[in-house]
């Protein structure tokens, strides 16, 4: 088996034993990139030279017997909204086409200090707004399982890279499902940690009260290892929480006997694909055989989640994106006539359609006379949605549900119908509103060979339980480790 096909966990163990070098692993990954990324198009920027230097440094570190971490010498890719010194950080937007940050995001600093190898920057929907990665200003990333279909979004580059083995693992960000939904479409593991678990410093903001960085990996154990490296308190992010970071990996094998699993009935409603439903129901039964108990539960305010989310997220985005004004950095429209015209033209030309749509929605929701009816009301509903989860979690440890009502859809299928695109996040959004940790683990394939994802949701800061349940499930799943063949022509 090629080195690029190994999990992070296996490579870590082999590197520690000296069976392989980081340089060999890294070269293998770049061979793979050269081989398949023209089809998948996960990368926006590839940094082979930098990566090889980092690989050599990691090997040197091991040779000298210096402290290492599970990611030392492991080739990892980053979603292109994580600030990186030396690499462009475009956020998939024309607005930041040539933007090179002068500082590293907190998670990037942690990875660099741990000796990780950074392969490059991954494609995404512009400013993380979208569910298909079609909103990137640069390219369309393809789903490695079916090149005619979208990888999901907004972290489509991050999940397609892991699925096509052009990175051992990657980081994405999840505001309304942007890690879990593409992870389910691409048949990989994608996790959104509790809000506050991972520092947002240097993550280019879409919706600050919802954004959270998380790992995208090929196995649950890899997610546990990578989360440990990036999690923890950071004084530069006021919303980062000062709680100890447990050793998620060592605790994976503790059994799940007696664990109470809730199955929220609202997540199995109209519009749920039959194949998705049966795969998820089967997964529930499998968990029961491992000793967990299953109970039907209700989250009554689920129906309001999408509306609530699209008011709050767009309101925050309208303000967060105000800084792209052509004054300090990034794109500036030429031949503007005066200051106001410079703002207008810069933002009209620099932003794509979806970003402009959301900035307008959010601006409207915050406007005088509408604030109470929209923004304030949405905040109140957010509280109700959070309370739903609090009540349910009083009686169970985790919830299981589908990630997305459907498997991956085709290019162009929803791009002209924003509402139907928004509804593909219907099962992931409530988790962001409540700030909870959740994961997408592969739980089977449709008849057409498209991956299906199982969503597991836990209490705040219960990532340990979340990962443990996911790991036990993964052990029982026959398709774990299946890789796409990348046959067929890209569209």
């Amino acid at each position, binding site marked *: 088996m090629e080195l690029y096909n190994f999990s992070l966990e296996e490579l870590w163990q082999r590197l520690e034993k000296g069976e392989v070098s980081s340089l060999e692993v890294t070269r293998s990954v770049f061979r793979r990139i050269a081989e398949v990324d023209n089809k998948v198009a996960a990368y926006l920027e590839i940094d082979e030279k930098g990566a090889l230097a980092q690989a050599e440094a990691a090997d040197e570190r091991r040779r000298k017997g210096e402290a290492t971490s599970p990611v030392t010498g492991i080739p990892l890719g980053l979603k292109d*909204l*994580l*600030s990186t010194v030396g690499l462009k*950080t475009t*956020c998939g937007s024309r607005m*930041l086409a040539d*933007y090179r*940050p*002068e*500082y590293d*995001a907190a998670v990037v600093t942690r990875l660099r200090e741990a000796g990780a190898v950074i392969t490059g920057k991954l494609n995404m929907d512009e400013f993380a707004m979208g569910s298909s990665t079609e909103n990137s200003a640069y390219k369309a990333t393809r789903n490695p399982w079916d090149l005619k279909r979208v990888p999901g979004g907004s972290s489509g580059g991050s999940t397609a890279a892991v699925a096509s083995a052009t990175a051992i693992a990657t980081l994405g960000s999840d505001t309304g499902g942007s890690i879990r939904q593409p992870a389910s479409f691409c048949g990989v593991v994608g996790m959104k940690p509790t809000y506050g678990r991972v520092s*947002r*410093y*240097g*993550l*280019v*903001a879409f*919706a*600050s*009260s919802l954004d959270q960085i998380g790992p995208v990996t090929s196995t649950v154990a890899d997610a546990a290892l990578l989360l440990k490296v990036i999690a923890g308190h950071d*004084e*530069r*992010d*006021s*919303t980062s929480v000062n709680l100890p970071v447990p050793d998620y990996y060592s605790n994976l094998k503790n059994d799940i006997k007696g664990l109470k699993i809730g199955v929220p009935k609202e997540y199995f409603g109209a519009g749920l694909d039959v194949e998705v439903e049966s795969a998820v129901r089967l997964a529930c039964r499998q968990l029961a055989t491992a000793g967990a108990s299953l109970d039907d539960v209700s989250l009554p305010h689920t129906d309001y989640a999408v509306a609530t989310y699209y008011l709050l997220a767009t*309101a*925050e985005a*309208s*303000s967060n*994106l*105000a*800084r792209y*004004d052509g*004054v*300090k*950095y990034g794109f500036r429209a030429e031949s503007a006539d005066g*200051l106001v015209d410079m*703002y207008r033209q810069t933002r009209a030309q620099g932003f794509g359609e979806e970003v402009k749509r959301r900035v307008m929605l959010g*601006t409207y929701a*915050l*406007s*005088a006379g509408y*604030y109470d009816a929209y*923004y304030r009301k949405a905040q109140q509903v957010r509280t109700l949605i959070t309370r739903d989860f609090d009540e349910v979690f009083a009686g169970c440890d985790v919830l299981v549900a589908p990630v997305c009502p459907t498997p991956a859809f085709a290019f162009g299928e929803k791009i002209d119908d924003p509402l139907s695109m928004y509804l593909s996040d219907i099962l992931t959004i409530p988790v962001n509103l409540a700030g909870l940790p959740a994961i997408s683990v592969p739980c089977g394939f449709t008849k057409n060979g498209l991956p299906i994802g199982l969503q597991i949701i836990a209490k705040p800061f219960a990532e340990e339980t979340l990962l443990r349940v996911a790991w036990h499930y993964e052990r029982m799943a026959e398709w774990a480790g299946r890789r796409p063949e990348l046959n067929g022509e890209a569209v």
Partner: protein
Amino acid sequence: MDYEIVIGLEVHCQLLTQTKIFCGCSTHFGNPPNQNTCPVCTGMPGALPVLNRKVVDFAIRAGLATDCQITPSSVFARKNYFYPDLPKGYQISQFELPICVDGHLDIEVDNQKKRIGITRIHMEEDAGKLVHPEHVHGVSYVDYNRACVPLIEIVSEPDMRSSAEAVAYLKALRDIVVYLGVCDGNMEEGSFRCDANISLRRWGAPELGTRAELKNMNSFRNVQRAIEYEVERQRDILDEGGRVVQETRLWDVDRGVSALMRGKEEAHDYRYFPDPDLLPVVVDEAWVEKVRQSLPELPVARCQRIVADFAIPVADAEVLTADRAMADYFEAVVKLFPQPKAAANWIMVELMKFLNEDKISVTQCPITPQGLADLLGLIGDNTISGKIGKQVFSKMYSAADNDPRQIVEDQGLAQMSDAGELAVIVDEIIDANDDKVKDYQQGKVKLFGFFVGQVMKKTKGQANPQMVNSLLKEKIG
């Protein structure tokens, strides 16, 4: 027609913290453009604000000094608008839940005491500033050194009824923030700036009239002039049967007029909402108490105490306590030389004259409280006269020499108090002015001063004046 004038003031104070409100950059004034900046205060993508707790301390101080309630959980909000000096496209301020509410400040105008309500005090960040290079047309630069420098905005109730009251309120407020050490109070440089909301209404009318907002008044004098100008402008409109429209006007200091800046329809919709990057500012009782303990005695209280303890006139006490450092200096001198009246006189007459001439503050005064106390001691025990004292003072000041005894010794300035020696001189003067003695004795009593002057001239001013008086009285009646 006669109208009631209604004025409310919004005052911005730049806080004297070492670092900015949401990042670690220096607040030092006068550095090269964009030197005091980082990803946070230039609004780089992904950078996040972290609150400087010192700013909260300062805001609580201002709140306690104006009898405000301190909000247990206040919230930062984003004020959204576009301008090149605003790096993020929004200013982080406070809106629905400010740190302090419901305070007041007492003022006195024409011996009438009045209480002015303070609606709220909130914390916020300053913006940068635009730089327009000379001789280059159509180009602007932005300097973000001032971006993210902490401010508090103190908003009054519309309780003032004349420009004099507005100025009295502003002066009292400035004294307080300077005393508290939270702001340097400099109006010309803009670290203490004021906007005024002004409206007129018929006497007895229940509702307020439509107000205009005035900006850009950089001195107490200009605040007064601008308000008076605005009152006249509105009075003319109303007298002619017109209606005042809500607008923002800019005061032109040079021309002494105000001009329209923007009308109501151009008013920004700031779309305030709670800043999701910052947690609510939770201030518990213990924090408030800690700040309360650290509060200095405020000008009004200190003035009252000085009048009571030292028996000096109210007017003098007001002068001495207008500046906290001056009041400290005065009290330090009195501690070393317990004659408050003499100390007050010397400080208000001599010391302030020198300081004013050099335009320096008392903290930079070359004469220490100890030096001045020693000098007053020499006058008090008749080693030197008051007149010589002024000479010694001048010498001490110019040479930064705080040993007046040595100066008196070196320059032979000690007072002549030997009765025998003085008697000889007095006799000499009497003998040499026979005719004047006769005139005096025949009733030209004014000539007594002439004799004293002659003795002083002979002794280069060092004769003890009391002794000279009694010797002369003795000898010429």
